[in-house]
């Protein structure tokens, strides 16, 4: 406890150990790290202030958005949704068979469990944009490398969530099914899936929402969708077109967010009744 005038600072280890100087050292070290990071990242509010007129100029060129350009965006916007849809579907197809091996309570043994967890960690660890760059190099420009990027990264994400929901299920019915002489796949079909299916659908819907958001930027690396138009318009200095792209993206993402929230709430409700 540190007394500051009439006030007492109630930050102390239980037992009232008078080790307050340790906190001082920790605070100084914390500030040091932030200072070091600020130098590396060149965080400078002075620069921001100096750049203000340029930002204002840029925004000025974007306004008003070019509404005419909207007509050209319909197709790429639909393509974005299509990329997200197939990216999500393939991610589910990849994740479902893997997740059972990555769930501690179902996995046949510890080695398989750890190996599968690592596989999921690696695919999840690589950002979609990086994957898209790789796939663009491999299969060429267009929406399909975008689909593959979303599928691979999404499989890692979904696999982990699926496995975690399997680990949370009631183990009793699983034991009961094993005791009837059911095989491993029968046990999964009748004991595991019914217990996790609503959680899984919720996660898949959320994944679709995330994929849609990611699909809007995949075009920047040439992997199709509305991001392609965004980058194109910027390269041609057509900032009014850029503004239209950004507006369309914002509306798409907000719509997806709203629909997915509603859908998940509805599923949760359905699961309870």
């Amino acid at each position: 406890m540190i007394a500051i005038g009439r006030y007492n600072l109630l930050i102390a280890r239980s037992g009232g150990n008078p080790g307050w100087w340790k906190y001082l050292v920790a605070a100084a070290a914390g500030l040091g790290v932030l200072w070091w990071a600020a130098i590396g990242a060149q965080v400078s509010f002075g620069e921001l202030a100096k750049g203000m007129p340029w930002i204002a100029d840029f925004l000025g060129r974007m306004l008003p958005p070019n509404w005419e350009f909207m007509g050209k965006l319909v197709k790429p916007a639909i393509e974005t949704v299509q990329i997200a849809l197939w990216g999500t579907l393939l991610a589910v197809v990849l994740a479902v068979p893997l997740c059972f091996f990555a769930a501690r309570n179902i996995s046949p043994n510890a080695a398989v469990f750890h190996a599968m967890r690592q596989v999921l960690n690696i695919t999840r660890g690589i950002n979609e944009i990086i994957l898209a760059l790789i796939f663009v190099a491999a299969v060429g420009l267009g929406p399909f490398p975008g689909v593959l990027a979303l599928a691979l990264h999404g499989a890692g994400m979904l696999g982990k969530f699926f496995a975690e929901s399997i680990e949370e299920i009631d183990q009793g019915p699983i034991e009961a099914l094993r005791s009837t002489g059911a095989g491993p796949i029968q046990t999964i079909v009748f004991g595991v899936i019914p217990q996790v299916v609503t959680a899984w659908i919720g996660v898949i819907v959320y994944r679709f929402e995330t994929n849609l958001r990611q699909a809007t930027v995949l075009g920047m690396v040439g992997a199709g969708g509305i991001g392609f138009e965004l980058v194109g318009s910027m390269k041609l200095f057509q900032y009014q077109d850029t503004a239209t792209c950004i507006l369309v993206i914002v509306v798409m993402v907000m719509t997806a967010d709203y629909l997915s929230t509603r859908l998940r709430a509805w599923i949760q409700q359905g699961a309870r009744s």
Partner: protein
Amino acid sequence: MIEIRGLGKRYGDFTALHQVDLAVGKGEFVVILGASGAGKSTLLRCINQLAEPTQGEVRVDGAPVRRDRAGLRRVRRDVAMIFQHYNVVPRLSVLKNVLTGRLGSMPALASWFQVFPARDIAIARECLRRVELDHKADLRTDTLSGGQKQRVGIARALAQRPKVILADEPVASLDPKTSRKVLNYLRQASREDGITVICNLHQVDYAREFAQRVIGVAGGRVVFEGRPDELTDEVLQRIYPGGLEPDPGEPKEDAALAAAHAPALPPVQQLALEQP
């Protein structure tokens, strides 16, 4: 029907079962009595290999139980199990839960896609009729009461057409009236179908009422074997060395006893006692 010789089970340093020998005949209704942690559950689980015995041999219907895939499937098809917490799958329909009892004997590939032979569906319906739940067949199982869920558990066990039913404290979470009903279904199964029933209980009353033979287990050893009318106070003292568990009718005494003992123990020790 069941022969157990020199069965032992260790969990790390803890020995749950010491050298248990036991023989149970066809169609017999045997009750295993014992305090919590005496090894009753472990004994049942060693029979259908939900727990792997550390030593000894289990024979079901003359054949030794093996732990390879085919051996496990065989013993588990012949030996059905009923659980204290019912262990029915909550989101499946009542009928489908009963059908899971047939999984070991139906074509696996079709069952993955929810295709069941008509014969198995007929068996499942028949078993539901026997526990008087045929009118609930299409309801989701989590809409049922505890007693009804346990009846679904019994129907699932019967649907296996087993030679043996192992019941692990099947009525520990049920009220007395429902408990009798559930135990009656089990007795019926043993009398009418000649199914061997081994039932773990900790209520002495039910053991007296339903058992043909009582096995007393304490500290992982069989300490009594005999007819229910041989359950004298001296025998019960042997089965429950720490004192007889109170009848459901007088739980106050137990609470008072617990209250008297609890403050004497430091919290850590209490925790250790709760999680043996």
